[in-house]
């Protein structure tokens, strides 16, 4: 992975903050800044430094190009990257968001205890595997015409609630209430609609999953209770997926367009995957509005999946979802660009914050949060590998001062997919997981092997870094007991 990248001479700015000065690379406009423990930064692949400092060269970048502790090399921007751009002099880049626009996490509570669920775990996971399609090119049950689909992309998750796929309370428990209002379907190609129209309510593959979890350890009892988690044997459900083929095509369409138009705006980039356009240009605005449609598609996708989860629990446990207190805790996006106000050079100004594999974690002071979160901060859900568990965090006001209100999104890979496959077969991993008490269903054994726990950093080290930095605080750690892997 290291491809002739020189090791930077870091300037250590705090226990877990490492800066790469602008002298590292010609053209850097701001320093790079990485949040990591000494152990994590030593094990980070060097391409991250190259990609982070490439981002630091982009026009209009503000303060620092940032990397979260789960960072690993991506395409263009590193995964785990955060960068904010001045809307007048800066750019918007599909490579700073990822093809899976609004890939994100969703956490749902139940009032069921481990001992009630264990006897029915296999039929529950089997039913979920049947009802929430996963894997290559999978199709969902929601049938819409192209015109209806385009309207849904503008309406976001409220369409789901209006059509029986959710509860009214679900909406305030989603980032942006499950709808980015500037979505404009006229900026989306027919090709994108054609690719995604049959995929609502599906997981996809890669590192996407639906997981039955036990609330393993509660770090902050008061906050956990406000979020609906009361005991360490309580069962929750976590979902990780995004905007499916629709979002992937929006990303592809605009990556191609931006590659062509960069000379017109006199922009050159060191990696073609950093293709970008001035934020205020017609092309930049078109992408911003199309990307919002894809972000809404992801909210809808995860909401339809929540509806299916509630149906499956109802069938298996023969109780109403309301009776099982199947409340949405929160739905967070970790692949987006948003116009947000942040403090730059001592004054508040609007900036275009790109988060690629990074979670928004606003502190309690932000008015964007629904009233119920204005005393505790935005919940941030950090998904680990299917072996090591996941975390629920809350954002702090300090994150607003340091990371544009952003934290980590997952464990972060340390091993390529091929290497992971060479280490273990999907079939033997499945048996190993079962011995550990985790029942897994998958459509792809090779895909399962690629997601083995040893291919990722230890998630506890990742969330500890952000806790030590005061960016996001640990609330609950979850242990997997059942997993559907795409």
């Amino acid at each position, binding site marked *: *992975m290291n*491809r002739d990248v020189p090791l930077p001479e870091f300037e250590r700015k705090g226990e877990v903050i490492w800066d790469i000065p602008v002298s590292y690379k010609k053209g850097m406009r701001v320093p790079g800044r990485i949040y990591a423990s000494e152990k994590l930064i030593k094990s980070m*692949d060097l391409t991250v430094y190259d990609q982070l400092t490439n981002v630091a060269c982009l026009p209009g970048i503000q303060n620092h190009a940032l990397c979260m502790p789960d960072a*690993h*090399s*991506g*395409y*263009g921007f590193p*995964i785990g990257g955060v960068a904010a751009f001045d809307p007048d002099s800066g750019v918007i880049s599909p490579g700073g968001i*990822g*093809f*899976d626009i609004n890939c994100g996490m969703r956490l749902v509570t139940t009032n069921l205890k481990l001992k009630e669920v264990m006897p029915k775990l296999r039929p529950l996971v089997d039913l979920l595997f049947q009802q929430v399609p996963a*894997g*290559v*090119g*999978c*199709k969902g049950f929601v049938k819409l015409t192209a015109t209806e689909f385009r309207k849904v992309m503008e309406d976001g998750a409220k369409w789901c609630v209006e059509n029986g796929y959710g509860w009214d309370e679900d909406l305030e428990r989603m980032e942006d209430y499950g709808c980015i209002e500037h979505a404009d379907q006229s900026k989306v190609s027919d*090709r994108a609609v*054609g*690719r*995604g129209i*049959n*995929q609502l309510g599906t997981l*996809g*593959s*890669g*590192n996407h999953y639906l997981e039955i979890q036990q609330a393993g350890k509660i770090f902050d009892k008061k906050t956990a209770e406000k979020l609906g988690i009361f005991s360490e044997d309580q069962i929750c459900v976590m979902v990780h997926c995004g905007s*499916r*083929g629709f979002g*992937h*095509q929006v*990303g*592809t369409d605009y*990556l*191609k367009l931006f*590659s062509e138009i960069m000379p017109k705006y006199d922009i050159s980039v060191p*990696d*073609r*995957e950093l*293709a970008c356009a001035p934020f205020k240009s017609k092309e930049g605005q078109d992408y911003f509005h199309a990307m919002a449609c894809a972000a809404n598609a992801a909210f809808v996708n995860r909401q339809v999946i929540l509806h299916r989860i509630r149906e499956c629990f109802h069938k298996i446990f023969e109780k109403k979802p309301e009776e099982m207190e199947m409340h949405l805790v929160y739905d967070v996006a970790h692949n987006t660009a948003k116009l947000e106000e942040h403090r730059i050079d001592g004054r508040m100004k609007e900036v275009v914050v790109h988060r690629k594999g990074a979670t928004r974690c606003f502190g309690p002071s932000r008015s964007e949060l629904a009233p119920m979160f204005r005393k505790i901060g935005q919940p941030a859900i950090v998904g680990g590998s299917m072996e090591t568990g996941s975390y629920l965090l809350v954002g702090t006001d300090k994150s607003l001062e340091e990371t544009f209100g952003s934290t980590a999104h997952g464990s972060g*890979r*340390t*091993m*390529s*997919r*091929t*290497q992971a496959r060479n280490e273990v077969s999907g079939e033997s991993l499945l048996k190993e997981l079962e011995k550990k008490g985790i029942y897994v269903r998958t*459509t*792809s054994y*090779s*895909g399962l092997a*690629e997601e083995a726990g040893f291919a990722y950093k230890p998630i506890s080290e990742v969330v500890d870094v952000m806790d030590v930095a005061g960016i996001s605080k640990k609330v609950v750690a979850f242990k997997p007991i059942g997993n559907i892997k*795409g």
Partner: protein
Amino acid sequence: MPFKFVEDIAMADVAFEATGKTLKELFESSASAAIESMANPKTVKPKIKKTFRKKAKDIDGLLFEFLEELIYLKDRFAIVFHDVKVKVDEEKMTVQAVITGDKIQPEKQELRQDVKAVTMHYYTVVKRKYWKANVVLDI
């Protein structure tokens, strides 16, 4: 001419290097890498046939458009692929492709990864003694 998956490029994604004495060979070996990433073609029957034509300004763009179409077709028709044959016209900068495959059936096929996109990360198409392409697919 062959292709090989390359480990050292993209940690979370799939990178491959495809080669060909001719453009036809380059396109077909690139297609083989892409379709093998999605499903084992030996487990996919050639029950469905689709044809498409793509045009671009240069070879670099033409290969990108061609591979991107395979990924689009996978989602649009929920299919995986058995084989791809092409005719490349370098003068007109067009590719004519015939693909065979089948509807996705997890119980009958060895499915692999749901490729999201062709990226431009380290993307190159060059001709020296023979044609060579480096491609990273987003997973």
